[in-house]
């Protein structure tokens, strides 16, 4: 059972995993793996982006547990916590998606035991770190300082989580890193993690498997700016300088990678300047979605392809530059991976919100939806995943559409299914009075028809299977191509 260990490092790591979770919920295929094991590495335990992603992953996990493995469908890929991959946990690893830093409740100065250092060592520390670095509380991460991050994160390899990860690493498993290059945690964490995993002298078990495992990474270069404030800890004007410095390091020091994806965009409207904590909760951005696609792309290569002529470096180019991206602006390959699945998922979420609670139809009666949606926890979990105020799929699509550059393949305001794909309305034939395209009647008729043909005793599994089949048919018959 091949696994993908996905290390999401820093705030960008969390946000990319959020996008990947949405893609997997939409049914995007992740080949060559049976299970994704996200491990979020962020010392900022209260980071808004991270906690939102963790909630989303937990919700996905609950839904998947009920659905089980299937050939196709929404939520078809298993997502597991690190401790969830083995029965033999021994209590050393918590059942969570977050790497446990054990609460670093101290400043960097205290972490280094600066006051106890020799004069020479203090001199070296003073050379490498500013006073601000030293006084910086580690509770909110490294605040854009990779030099701080590289010290703290270097201890990661000695943690119970890393040992557990290595103990359970098997032949055929893969590793992928998601990080930004212009921040603190990601820029420091990615090369360190890679170095430690691929180190030929590592004390981790299964060292050979780890060394030979197909390994990929996406490094997100600057794609947003931060509002300039006088006392701000992070100055986004330094992002490019930091990126150049990190790239020159990567050029010679990244050993053991099979594929590396680079992504960047020209920043538009600056984000609120929040160095960390609960307030750091940025809107979903298309770059994060494309970074999630790089994970899908990486998994589409066979191990042999990855090893031939590697490492492979990838960059991303839009089919057509535009401030508001629709499907037509994406290259064919990206459309092929996600356009149909996202459209189906949108139809599902919209129908789930607009019609499901009020549908009086055989499919709803047979699934006992009226009762289930009010009383069964798994139905409420699905509702949270789709429509949750902060973490739901609706919110994710809204954020993508509102951000700059925006990803707006759908009209999220309309109730008309025919007009939901921007730039690709469903055509209604003028000479066919009865053809109303993707009407409520069309969807309802197909829901009733398909429900009759599905032999599934569990009403939740049947509901998801039913909507996947119906939205698939709707896409093939009415939309055809985007």
């Amino acid at each position, binding site marked *: 059972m091949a696994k993908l260990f996905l290390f999401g490092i820093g705030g960008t790591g969390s946000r990319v995993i959020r996008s990947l979770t949405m893609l997997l919920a939409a049914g995007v295929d992740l080949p060559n793996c049976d299970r994704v094991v996200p491990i979020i590495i962020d010392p900022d335990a209260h980071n808004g982006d991270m906690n939102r992603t963790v909630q989303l992953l937990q919700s996905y996990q609950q839904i998947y547990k009920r659905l089980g493995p299937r050939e196709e469908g929404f939520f078809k890929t298993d997502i597991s916590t690190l401790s969830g991959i083995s029965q033999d946990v021994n209590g050393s690893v918590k059942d969570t998606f977050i790497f446990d830093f054990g609460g670093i409740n101290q400043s960097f100065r205290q972490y280094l035991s600066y006051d106890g250092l020799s004069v020479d060592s203090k001199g070296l520390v003073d050379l490498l770190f500013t006073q601000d670095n030293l006084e910086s509380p580690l509770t909110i991460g490294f605040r854009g300082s990779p030099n701080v991050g590289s010290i703290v994160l270097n201890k990661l390899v000695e943690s119970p989580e890393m040992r557990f990860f290595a103990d359970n690493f098997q032949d055929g498993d893969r590793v992928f890193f998601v990080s930004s290059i212009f921040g603190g945690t990601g820029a420091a964490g990615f090369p360190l993690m890679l170095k430690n995993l691929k180190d030929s002298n590592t004390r981790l078990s299964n060292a050979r498997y780890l060394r030979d495992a197909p390994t990929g990474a996406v490094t997100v270069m600057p794609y947003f700016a931060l509002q300039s404030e006088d006392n701000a800890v992070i100055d986004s004007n330094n992002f490019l300088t930091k990126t150049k410095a990190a790239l020159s390091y990567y050029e010679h020091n990244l050993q053991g990678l099979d594929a590396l994806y680079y992504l960047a965009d020209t920043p538009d409207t600056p984000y609120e300047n929040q160095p960390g904590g609960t307030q750091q909760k940025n809107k979903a951005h298309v770059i994060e979605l494309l970074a999630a696609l790089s994970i899908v792309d990486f998994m589409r290569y066979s191990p042999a392809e990855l090893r031939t002529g590697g490492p492979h470096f990838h960059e991303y180019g839009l089919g057509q530059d535009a401030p508001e991206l629709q499907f037509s602006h994406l290259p064919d390959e990206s459309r092929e991976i996600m356009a149909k699945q996202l459209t189906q998922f949108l139809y599902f979420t919209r129908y789930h919100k607009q019609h499901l609670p009020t549908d*009086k*139809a*055989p499919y709803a*009666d*047979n699934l006992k939806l009226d009762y289930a949606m009010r009383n069964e926890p798994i139905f409420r979990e699905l509702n949270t995943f789709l429509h949750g105020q902060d973490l739901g799929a609706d919110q994710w699509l809204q954020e993508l559409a509102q951000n700059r550059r925006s990803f707006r393949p759908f009209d999220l305001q309309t109730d008309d299914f025919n007009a939901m794909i921007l730039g690709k309305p469903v055509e209604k034939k003028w000479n066919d009075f*009865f053809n109303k395209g993707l009407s*409520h*009647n*069309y969807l*309802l*008729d197909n*829901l*009733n*028809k398909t429900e*009759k043909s599905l032999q599934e005793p569990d009403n939740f599994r049947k509901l998801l299977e039913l909507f996947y089949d119906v939205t698939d048919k709707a896409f093939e018959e009415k939309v055809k191509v985007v």
Partner: protein
Amino acid sequence: MKAFFRFLYELIGNPQPPADTPVYRDVIFPNLGLLNLGISAGLALVFYLLINRAMGVATFNKGRHWSIFLVLNALIAFFVTIWQTNAQQVTDHSYIYWLATWNAILGLAWFFIFSLLFKRASTNASTTPF
């Protein structure tokens, strides 16, 4: 068949005036019975198999839509009785209206029974009326 319909329609009493009893028993009751069965079955087929299956109309399947057909069936049964009695030139008597009302009630029953029979074959009304 004649005996069955005679039994069914004389549940409300013997035909009036007594002089017309043979016409009722030999002609009107069988005609009414067969027409009522046929119309009820036809309307149930239209509702369950034509509208809610063949035509793919999925939003005309609620209890209120079914009730429209039920009431329509009763009205047709009522007026078919008036038409039949007029056609057979029986004596004008209040019994005709009692018979028409009874035929309408039977129409309701037939439509309900046919609904139970046909609903399983319907796509969009398989749970209508329940």
